[in-house]
Every structure is written in C-alpha cells, then in structure tokens.
C-alpha cells in the first residue's frame, strides 16, 4: 500500500532524519523481539558464569570432609543463589530468549504480534536479576534451591533474603509468562503465507509448545510465590501448618512448575538438535510429525509427572503410582525422539562443526540424565535414591545436557545469525571436550556417592570415614573443569562478537527461513515475506535461485549459438 504511494514531502516521515539513539536508550526502549531476546541471552550467559562459579564454590567446600571453608549459612546462601541463578536466570532465559529470537524469524514473521509485552517481560526479568543479586545488601535466602515452607516461613528465616529470592524469581517468571503470551500469539497469527503447522520448523513449533507450557506453569508458580509472600509479610497461613495451612500445597505448586520447566529445557534441546542434525547431515528431519508430536507429548506428560518429586511426602500411594506412570510414559515420546534424531543422521554427509559436536554431546548427556531419572521414577527405588547426590547427578546431566550442551549447540548454530559473525571453531572444539570431561567427572562420582553411600543433597559438609572422600574430591575437580569449559565458551562468544569470521546470511546452508534474513536481521526481519511451499522453504528458495540461474545461463547459451 504505502510502497505504491507517491512521495509526499509535506508529510514529515519521508524526510525526517532518523533519531540517533544511544546504546542504553535503545536497550531500554526497543520492543523488537530480537533486542529483547538479546537482553535475555546475554544476561543468561553472565548468569551461567555466576551459576558455575557458585557451583564451584560449593564444590570447594565439599572437596574435603568436614571442611570449614564456608560457614553453614554461607553455604545455604550460595546454594539458594545457585538454584535461582541456574534455573531462572540461566536456563529459562536462554531457552526463551532463543525461542523469542529465532522462532519469529523461522516462521517468516516481520516482528512479534505484541512486542510491548515481550519488552515488558525482558525488563521484568532484568529487574528480577537485579533484585536477586542486590539481595547481598540484605543477606541472601538460606532456604535452598526450592524454598520449602515451613523452612522458608518467617518463623524460621526472618531476614528479607527469602522475600528477595521470591521477588526476583517471581519477576523473572512473570517476564517469561509475558514473553510466552507474545510468542504464542505471534506463532499463531504471524506465520508467513503458506506456512501451515505441518510446514513449520520443529524449533518454531517447540517455541509455541513451550510458550503454552509456560502459560500454564508460570502462573502456578506465581500463585505459590504470592502465597508465601503473603505468609511472610501479612501474617498469612497458606503454608503454615498451625493456622490450617498446608506445607504440602507449596510442594505441589512448585513441583508443577519445576517439572514443566525441566520439560521445557528438554524440548528446547531436542528441537535445536533436530534442526542442527538436519542441517549438518544434509538430510531432512526424519519423521518430523512424530518428533513434533513427541515434543508436545513431553511438555504435557513431563508436567503431569510432577509428583515424582514427592515420593517421600505424605501423599497417597496411588498418587505416587500415578506419578510413576506418567514418568515412565515419557519413555515413549523421548524414545521416539532419540530414535528419529539418530535416524536423521543416517546416510547423511555429516559436517563435524562445533554445533553438531555440541548437539551430539547434548543428546548423550540427556540420555544419561533421563535414564537415571527413569531409575528414580520407580517409587521404591526413589525411596532410597531421592535427595541423594545420585538424584543431583541425574538432574544435572539432563539439564546440563539440555541447557548447557543444547544451549551451546544452539548458540554456536545461531550465533552467525545474531551477530553476523561465526564463533571460533577451534576454541569451540576445545571447550566442548573440556565441558564433556568436566561434566562426566563432576557428576558420575556424585552419582556413585549417592547410590553407594547415600550422600545427601544440599549438605554443607560430609563426614570423614563415610566412604565418599574420593568421590567428592573427584567431583570437585570435575566442577572445576566444567567451570573452565563454561568460561572458554563465554570467552569464545564475547571475542567472536567483534572479531569472529564474517558469516553471510546463510553460513550453514540451512533449511529454515531465519537464514533467509540478513545476518544480523534488520528491524523488520524480511524485506520480502517469502511464500512457503514445503517444510524446507529455504531449500526451495535456493533451488529456485539455482534453477533460475541455470535457465538464464541456458538462455544465454542458446542465444549465443549461431542460428543454423
């Protein structure tokens, strides 16, 4: 419409000089989904560093028996910070940031449908991060990774630490919910012409599933946080047992969220790996519809298995069997995804670059973590294994596989799109092997210590002569290696922003539409919205361009032939 109109100098827009905005001004006022996503992703990189540092500090304390490096309350504070940082300020923002950056591009949208919501979400998340770390001003929470009442009630932790923790994570979750609304709407209404769901990229589909998942689980957590804040500050009795409240309610509400978030990280990783496997093997994704269905199934079933975290809690045995059923039911969709992802590689021409390496590592780590989770979903086995370091190891393998390896695979893969430059390949390889060695060394000994000697989670020290000294030392060394690996990746990313090799708009020969946009994409993403005819739209475009070039060549050749 407007493009066909004649120039009208009397309307100010045409000749209006573009306002030059400062970096901070831009950061705070831009509602572009790519800018909001960048805030989330850059922030999550920083918080990954902090989370790894906090884990390292805790492992230093646990390197030797009856260590006095940290006081118990200091340890509990670091533990609480670690829990919040790794979940709310590293894993989820990385996942949601990548969804927000890539998914609208993948479906050929020129922006998101409700950009101000995303902007609000990103800023709320940043506000949460500020509250969490300025919590040092009023002493951090000591209530642990999941602050279970009554421990987190005012009667037992009376300083403001828990309030700050709740506010911070609440802000972040509220932000995620707002972004999820924006993403869900965008992916519903703003897909390019011809892009039916059956042609949508797996990653974009997963972004939609993940957004809906966040829309269900986020408010549940926010409700729990609100109740606990009312308990603490306005004499509420939601979770205080004396006044008719129920500490169990908190466990139900938060485990719904945590189980859903766990599923969210996993489906994100599966989707990113599917894209990477397809592009780096040159094959189409094997059985796309099955993978897409399985991803939706994991989101639903994984969340419904929340009570498998409550096997020791006073709930009926039937509920525990229900949770076990749901957890074991996950075997089917997860197994199908593994099967189809491996089939995607078959017969391909694998280009062993860093994204593929990280993606393979991610699948391997997730397989370890989920297999161990499967063992612990058996009610009787969990009565021994839950809350030992064996369960720590299982969760960390699955989440490090999903968020760190899967996240780094996605980061290496989409980095050229986001910055216009590639990440260093050599450093990428080195950091991959460091991370792989580190995570095995960090968590296999912990699993053994938990299984053999029942070493418990969250404890600020372990006792001598309990047979776990060597395991703990190994685990501490492993976390140090893991920390180095994380730092290497972050260094690689930071250095590559300015000095990486320049990448074109499509360095990997991708199949999906984000590679159709420039690198980095302009504010409006696409000059021309492409017409989608299949599930590999960019391949179609490349083929069309090649065919056109061939035709032109042939025509030129024909014309240059002398007329017989």
């Amino acid at each position: 419409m407007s493009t066909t109109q004649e120039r009208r100098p009397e309307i100010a827009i045409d000749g209006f000089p573009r306002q030059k905005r400062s970096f901070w001004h831009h950061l705070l006022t831009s509602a572009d989904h790519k800018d909001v996503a960048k805030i989330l992703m850059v922030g999550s990189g920083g918080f990954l560093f902090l989370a790894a540092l906090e884990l390292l500090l805790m492992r230093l304390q646990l390197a030797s028996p009856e260590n006095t490096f940290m006081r118990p309350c200091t340890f509990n504070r670091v533990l609480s910070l670690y829990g919040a940082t790794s979940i709310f300020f590293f894993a989820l923002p990385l996942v949601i940031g990548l969804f927000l950056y890539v998914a609208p591009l993948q479906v050929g949208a020129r922006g998101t449908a409700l950009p101000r919501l995303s902007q609000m979400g990103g800023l709320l998340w940043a506000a949460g991060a500020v509250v969490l770390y300025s919590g040092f001003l009023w002493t951090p929470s000591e209530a642990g990774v999941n602050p279970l009442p009554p421990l987190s009630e005012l009667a037992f932790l009376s300083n403001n630490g828990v309030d700050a923790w709740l506010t911070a994570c609440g802000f972040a979750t509220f932000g995620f919910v707002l972004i999820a609304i924006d993403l869900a709407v965008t992916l519903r209404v703003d897909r390019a012409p011809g892009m039916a769901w059956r042609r949508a990229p797996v990653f974009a589909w997963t972004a939609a599933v993940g957004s809906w998942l966040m829309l269900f689980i986020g408010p549940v957590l926010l409700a729990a946080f609100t109740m606990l804040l009312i308990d603490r500050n306005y004499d509420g009795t939601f979770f205080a047992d004396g006044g008719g409240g129920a500490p169990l309610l908190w466990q139900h509400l938060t485990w719904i969220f945590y189980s859903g978030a766990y599923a969210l990280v996993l489906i994100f990783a599966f989707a990113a790996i599917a894209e990477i496997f397809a592009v780096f093997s040159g094959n189409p994704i094997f059985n796309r519809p099955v993978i897409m269905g399985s991803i939706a199934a994991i989101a639903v079933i994984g969340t419904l298995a929340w009570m498998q975290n409550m096997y020791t809690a006073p709930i009926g045995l039937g509920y525990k069997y229900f949770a076990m059923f749901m957890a074991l039911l996950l075997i089917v969709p997860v197994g199908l995804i593994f099967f189809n992802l491996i089939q995607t590689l078959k017969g391909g021409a694998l280009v062993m670059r860093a994204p593929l390496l990280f993606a393979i590592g991610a699948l391997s780590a997730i397989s370890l973590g989920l297999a161990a989770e499967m063992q612990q979903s058996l009610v009787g086995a969990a009565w021994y294994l839950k809350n030992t370091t064996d369960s720590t190891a299982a969760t960390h393998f699955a989440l490090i596989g999903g968020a760190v390896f899967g996240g780094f695979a996605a980061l290496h893969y989409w980095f050229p799109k986001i910055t216009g430059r590639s990440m260093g390949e050599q450093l990428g390889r080195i950091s991959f092997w460091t991370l792989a060695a580190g995570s095995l060394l960090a968590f296999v000994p912990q699993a053994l210590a938990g299984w053999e000697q029942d070493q418990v989670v969250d404890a600020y020290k372990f006792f001598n002569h309990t047979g776990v000294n060597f395991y703990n030392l190994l685990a501490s060394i492993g976390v140090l290696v893991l920390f180095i690996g994380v730092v290497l990746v972050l260094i690689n990313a930071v250095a590559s922003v300015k000095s990486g090799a320049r990448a074109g708009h499509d360095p990997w020969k991708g199949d999906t539409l984000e590679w159709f946009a420039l690198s980095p994409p302009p504010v409006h993403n696409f000059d021309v919205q492409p017409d989608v005819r299949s599930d590999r739209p960019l391949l179609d475009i490349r083929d069309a361009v090649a065919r056109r070039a061939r035709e032109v060549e042939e025509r030129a050749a024909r014309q240059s032939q002398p007329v017989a």
Partner: protein
Amino acid sequence: MTPHSPGTGQINTLIWIGFFAALLVVVAINLGLLGSVRRWRGGRGRTAAATAGKPGTQLRVAGALSGFALILFVLGIIFTSNALSTPKTTSAGLTSLNGKDLEGKPLVIKATGQQWLWRYNYPNGSFSYYKLVIPAHTAIELKLMSTDVIHTWNVPDLAPKVDATPGKTTHVLFRADAEGEFWGTASTLSGQAYAPMRTTVEVVSPERFEEFIKEQQKGIKAGNEGAEEIETEKIEEEEKANGGGEGGEEASSEEGEEGEEGEATEGESEEPAEEGGEGEEAEGTATAAAGEEIFSEQCSVCHGATGHGGNGGPDLTTMPLAQEQAGAEKQVTNGGGGMPAFKGILSEEEIASVASYVVEDINGK
C-alpha cells in the same frame, strides 16, 4: 547401601532393575549415536535419504518403548508394594511389651523431628534423642512428626525415606533383621545444622530393648522431678525470698538468679545429699572435666567441638545464657530456640557439669 531389612532388600532389587534398564537405554542410545557419527562423518553418505522410513516403523518403535515402560511400571509396583508389606514380626522378635501382647501388630514408636535432631518416644512413655533403639526381628511402625520444618527420616539400610511434615503424621514401617548400629542422615534441607542432623538406629535383642526402655523410664522420672523444680523457678525468682543458700559455689555468684538456681536445686527433696555434695565441690573442676565429655557427645554436634558454633548451634561465647551457670543449666534442661530439652537424657548432675564446662572452660568465667 547394604540392606538389613526385608523392605530395603526389595528396594535394593528395584534399584538394580532400574539400573539395568537405564544402562540398556544409555548404551543403546549412545551406540546408535556414536555409530552413526562414525559411519557418516565427513560426507560419506548419500544426501537424499528417505524422510519417513518404512511404513509402520514408528509404530513398532513406539510399541517396543511402551512395552519397556509397561514392564518397568509393573515391576515398580510389585517391588514397591513388596517393600511396604514385608515387615512382619517373626517369632524371634518382640511379641509382647509390658505384659501386653503385640498381636502381630507393629511396635509403634513416635519420632519427632525438630531443628536439628530426632526425639524418639517409646510405648512406655520413655524417650531418647538422636539414637533410636529397636528390637530385632520386630515390625516397627515409626510415626513421624515434625515440630518445625520438613525433615526427612532417612536410615538407608533399614527403611525407606519418609518426610516428617509439620501438621501431618507419616508412617514408616520396617523390620530390622540384624543387630547392630545403623546411621541415618537428614535429606531435606532444614536449616543450618542440616548436614550434621544425623541419627542412629541401634538394633538390639528384644530382651535388651525392654531393659533399655525401662532404664530410660527410670532416668526420665528422675529428670522430670528436676524439671518441675525448674518450672517453679520463675515464681521463686519473683519471690526472691530464700536468698542464695548454696549460691556461693561459683565465683560469679552475685547474680540473684544464680542463687535461686542453687536454692532450687537444694530444695529438691529426692536427692538432697547428692546435690549438697555437688555443691560442695565448689570449684567444679571435676564436674567441668566430666562436662567436657558430655559436651563432645551431646552438644558438639551443633555447637562445634570447641563450642564456637558452626554446625547450626550458635557460638556459645556470644550467648548471654551461657555466661552463667544457672542460665546454662536452664537452657540445657528446657531447651528452646531450636535447642532440644535435655531433661531426661542427661541427669541433673550431668547437666550441671556440662553447664559448668560451658561457663568455665568455654567462656572462661
């Protein structure tokens, strides 16, 4: 873990079943993954592969996975319900208590968690802290309660983990088939002294068990009378009528409270001679030495080996009550502020000596 009860035996079997299932999954996935990487790396493959495979493949894979999941589910239910139902009293176990027949019912013991220890109440009204003594070959039903936060009762060799949630009563049913001592830890974060919140279960013969709870009962009776004394202390304090009769035993005897404590102790009718005798050991070096031993057994768990805190208990040098004999005794006897009451666990004499150890040796008063 080394299972010493039929229930944990079942649990152990289930863990191994889960482990082999997990191993199968991990090996299959990683072999498949690494196999295809090795086979197809570096562009050895054809580029146009089938996108869906043979028809029915997905269904067959899904069917196999469902079967695998179903087998695990059924095994999980079988072994879990076995673990729950196996504890039954055998003929070798305790069949009657205080002349009352147990009639095949489990022996009920109440376990109360608090920050940061466990109190066990036995059927005859006696109780113990930290250590649970149970008869071998006897089904035990532990009724778990909590007075403050959520604690998980966790003695891995004997019983499944169960949460003690405030406001609810939960149950653990188990039977120990071997005599000996088994340790347990807390496994839900419960505050600062969560890590050292340990417990032990001593499995003894049924005869020894009956003896034990009788001894405990006797000790508690003696302790209770002391406790009543202390409850009336406040009133006496207000009256301030009697003056510090025995109060001169301490150098820092000026405090009225101190005097009152001395008076109160003296006023105890049961063992006046002994109390008097203790009072006469004026310097209390002998009691302080005995107190050191008691301290390392009972108090250092929380207050640290030197009493400077660290394991959840506060630094005693900073606590006002620990600066004077009477205050320390009162605190040890009645507990409060997260500290358990030791009346009944320690005799009055022992409380006095541990208090004097705290006041004299730790605080140097």
